[in-house]
């Protein structure tokens, strides 16, 4: 479990690097060119550099927006000559410095031109789907392989018929509020992402459109149940998930997952469950923040600020990503929010697939903990011996008589 989680963490970091590499500014800076031959306009070197994906210094265009104060006086010959030409105006619109007034009240309506849409779209339809899909398939394959090699983890001592309360009804309610909404969000999210490449070719647009219209409504609104469940679970279980010395023993023995008859001691949550818990909190908060940013478009920009802080730490530069973009248009903020939301979702789904496996078909007696809340005494002794001793006051190594 720990190795699996480590792999997931590495995948998270690598995927984040891919996103930043895909959407962030290229690290290689372009040398400044002599623009005398073009009168200060774009040169062949600029075009070639752009085609090679190198960073082009756009200041020669960005700053060439004219100067209204230098306009010829209205009393001059041939009437007025504006201080800014049409190309100057278009450049100002293109780089977002034009003084624009629009009738729409949308926060980003005054951004007339932004050019990062294609970068985002090609990332969304390319590496995001490809690597995200591979991650989920790899996790399913890993779990299938584990099942083939290890089989179902049985209760070594057998069922006793005696049970002990593992989770209260409130704990189970919080868990299922989060889990049920997560499954709905995961399915509708994947349907949105893979719609054009997988579902539309299969069902056609006429069937896909109304389904996803409903799916989008469900995704947007069930998200609140997920966030409430996440908050409940975090508050109820955080104290039980503080790492301790026994976790090292548990991890050293692989949690007993890979060999029969091995049951390292654990309290209410073992080290594997603690890793899952903290991943759920971390990924859950991250996906909730980016989700809120998407739910309230342009109202909660967070990436420019985050990148600014990251740049100050020197971490992106250390990883070879260069300076991350610390200023961006409102639309770029949304594009980053969508990309990050999907990346976190893929990692989250992969982690939860492993959790669902071990909590259902992977381990005998495990589902009861979240089903009825009552687990078999022998199961409790084998998998959470220290917790069993805490709640019952009895020795976990004493075999309970079968009924």
């Amino acid at each position, binding site marked *: 479990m720990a190795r699996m989680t480590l792999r997931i963490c590495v995948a998270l970091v690598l995927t984040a690097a891919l996103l930043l590499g895909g959407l962030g500014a290229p690290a290689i800076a372009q040398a400044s060119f002599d623009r005398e031959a073009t009168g200060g306009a774009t040169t062949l070197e600029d075009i070639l550099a752009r085609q090679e994906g190198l960073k082009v210094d756009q200041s020669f265009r960005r700053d060439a927006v004219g100067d209204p104060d230098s306009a010829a006086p209205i009393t001059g010959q041939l009437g007025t000559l504006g201080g800014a030409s049409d190309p100057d105006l278009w450049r100002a619109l293109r780089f977002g410095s034009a003084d624009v007034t629009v*009738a*729409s*009240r*949308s926060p980003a*309506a005054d951004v007339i031109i932004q050019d990062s849409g294609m970068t985002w779209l090609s990332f969304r339809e390319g590496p995001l789907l490809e690597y995200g899909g591979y991650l989920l398939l790899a996790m399913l394959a890993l779990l299938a392989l584990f099942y083939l090699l290890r089989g179902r983890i049985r209760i070594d001592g057998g069922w006793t018929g005696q049970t002990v309360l593992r989770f209260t*009804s*409130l704990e*189970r*309610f*919080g*868990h*299922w*509020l989060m*889990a*049920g*909404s997560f499954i*709905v969000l995961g399915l509708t999210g994947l349907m949105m992402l893979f719609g054009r490449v997988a579902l539309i070719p299969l069902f056609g647009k006429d069937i896909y459109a109304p389904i996803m219209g409903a799916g989008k*409504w*469900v995704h*947007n*609104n*069930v*998200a*609140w*149940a997920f966030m*409430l*469940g996440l908050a409940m679970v975090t508050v109820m279980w955080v104290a039980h998930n503080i790492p301790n010395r026994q976790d090292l023993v548990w991890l050293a023995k692989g949690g007993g997952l890979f060999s029969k008859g091995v049951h390292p001691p654990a309290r209410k949550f073992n080290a594997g469950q603690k890793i899952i818990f903290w991943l759920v909190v971390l990924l859950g908060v991250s996906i909730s923040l980016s989700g809120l940013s998407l739910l*309230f*478009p342009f109202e909660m920009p967070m990436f420019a600020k985050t990148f600014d802080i990251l740049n100050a730490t020197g971490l992106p530069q250390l990883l070879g990503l260069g300076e991350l973009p610390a200023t961006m248009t409102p639309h770029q903020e949304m594009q980053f929010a969508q990309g990050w939301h999907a990346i976190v979702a893929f990692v989250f789904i992969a982690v939860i697939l492993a959790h669902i496996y071990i909590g259902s078909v992977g381990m005998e007696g495990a589902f009861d903990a*979240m*089903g*009825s*809340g009552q687990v078999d005494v022998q199961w409790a002794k084998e998998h959470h011996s220290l917790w069993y001793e805490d709640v019952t006051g009895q020795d976990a190594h004493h075999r309970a008589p079968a009924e």
Partner: protein
Amino acid sequence: MKSMYLAFLASALIAVAAHFGLDYAGFSTRDVTSGPDVRLD
């Protein structure tokens, strides 16, 4: 299993409440991105 079914029911109720609540609070796309001058209703 009662807790699980109750949680699923609560998820559905929260979703419906969120939809109407946000709409009532003025967070609908119509309210956020347009003014009364450009609406047909």
